[in-house]
């Protein structure tokens, strides 16, 4: 399978702190890849490299066969139309209503009529269970609601590549379940045409191993394990941290 995203020997430091240390791995096209790892180990930094919010100090990130940093400013901006991203902080535009936030990418990149935009936005907001909050502004929302609006905004244009930074952190178990389902379905929906590639950062080990096609474990700036959920369950990875990180999860499941 042709990889959608390739990390080639990527290194990133902030001052003296090396966050990504010569990382190489591939994210397959049309699959759901979950990145796991302890807090503060560089998962968000990794995700920001995929979409070119951060530039590697060394190495390359190739997306869909293109090195973002070999493009001009204009081309890079254009290229990002392939993506939708949910930020860990949701990063909603706080001067706009929920509706305008979700409508933003649609307005920017399509020439749909106001009616069509409205129905599209409503459809996405229904998916995250927020059709009632349409006229609220972000400061009037709870953290979990903001996350869900961010999610609706990320999928608004039904992009080819979806990046989610901790989509379910801070949600109750029921909502977590339905958001997981949403991500799973969004990913599967167009899978027939082999079009959606999803990358999810998660702390939710249980559901990760239920929905992921590929699991990547980031630890101390390196990928210490990368494989299908079964590979993890079958104990293919011997790094002591893999066992430690997953302890307590498989005994229950198997």
């Amino acid at each position, binding site marked *: 399978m042709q990889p959608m995203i390739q990390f080639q020997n990527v290194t990133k430091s902030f001052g003296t702190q090396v966050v990504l240390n010569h990382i190489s791995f591939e994210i397959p096209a049309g699959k759901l890849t979950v990145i796991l790892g302890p807090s503060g180990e560089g998962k968000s930094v990794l995700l920001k490299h995929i*979409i070119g919010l951060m530039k590697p100090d060394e190495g390359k990130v190739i997306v869909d066969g293109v090195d973002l940093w070999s493009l001009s*400013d204009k081309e890079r901006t*254009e290229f990002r139309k392939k*993506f*939708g991203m949910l930020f860990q902080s949701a*990063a909603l535009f*706080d001067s706009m209503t929920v509706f305008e936030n979700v409508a933003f990418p649609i307005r920017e990149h399509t020439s749909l009529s106001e009616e069509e935009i409205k129905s599209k936005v409503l459809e996405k907001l229904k998916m995250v269970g927020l059709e009632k909050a349409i006229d609220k502004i972000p400061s009037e929302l709870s953290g979990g609601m903001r996350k869900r609006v961010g999610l609706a905004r990320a999928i608004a244009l039904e992009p080819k590549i979806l990046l989610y930074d901790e989509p379910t952190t801070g949600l109750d178990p029921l909502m977590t379940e339905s958001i997981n389902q949403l991500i799973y379905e969004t990913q599967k929906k167009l899978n027939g045409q082999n079009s959606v590639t999803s990358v999810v950062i998660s702390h939710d080990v249980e559901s990760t191993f239920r929905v992921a096609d590929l699991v990547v474990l980031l630890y101390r700036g390196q990928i210490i394990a990368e494989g299908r959920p079964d590979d993890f369950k079958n104990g293919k990875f011997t790094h002591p941290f893999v066992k430690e990180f997953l302890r307590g999860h498989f005994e229950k499941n198997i």
Partner: protein
Amino acid sequence: MFTSNVPSTNSPKTSRDFGKIILSFIHELGEFLFFTREFFHWLFQRPYRSSLIVQQMEFIGVRSLPIILLTGGFTGMVFGLQTGYAFRLFNAGSFVGSTVGLALTREIAPVFTALMVVARCGSAMAASIGTMKVTEQVDALTTMAVSPIHYLVVPRVVASVLMMPLLTGVFIGVGTFGAYIVATGLLNIDPNAFMQKLTYYVDFDDVFGGMIKAAVFGFFLSIISCERGYKTTKGAEGVGLSTTQAVVISSVSILIVDYFLTSWILEFFSGDM
């Protein structure tokens, strides 16, 4: 347990510190020039964001009117009073018109208007862009395939360049009117003589020169303020710092740019006088 760090006493400035300051100045200047280049790169890219530009024009232009009317009027009145008293000593009271007119059009109006707009709008630009930066809204724009420079900076700078000359025109108008009221009403200077001297000495070139200055100030104050906002790091405190820097650097720059513009305009326009 709770041993607080004793604040280290400020070490005396050594030549090394001085070198550091120079280096960081050059670094910042380089970053600013790079930012300006990016601005021009995005300036003429489609889509033209006319609704954002209009929105900014309203914010910078229309909503600055009260403060411009107020400062313009009182500046003209004070100026009328001062020059009136002085000129009356020589029985040359009518020259208040020309003096105030020239000073306002060439210097006072563009500079004061710019300083007012810096205080009102430059600070707001730095604060709003800075807040968007530290809350990742700028990054969110980027990920949605929208250039933050194109979306946030271009409309502000364009609106500022367009509105500054208009505001300066208003300042000139109310300033002159204020001087007229004080000179004729308070100091009993002949209204006809006032107007005659005003129209004789102040010609279109002076007003035009003032407008050009205003537009140039509008460019510098907005791009400096946007740049400060755009470079914000470190949370809420960083936003405060950026806002302060935007106001201080813009104000100082306006006065420095004014000197060079003035010498250029004087040379340029005195050639065909």
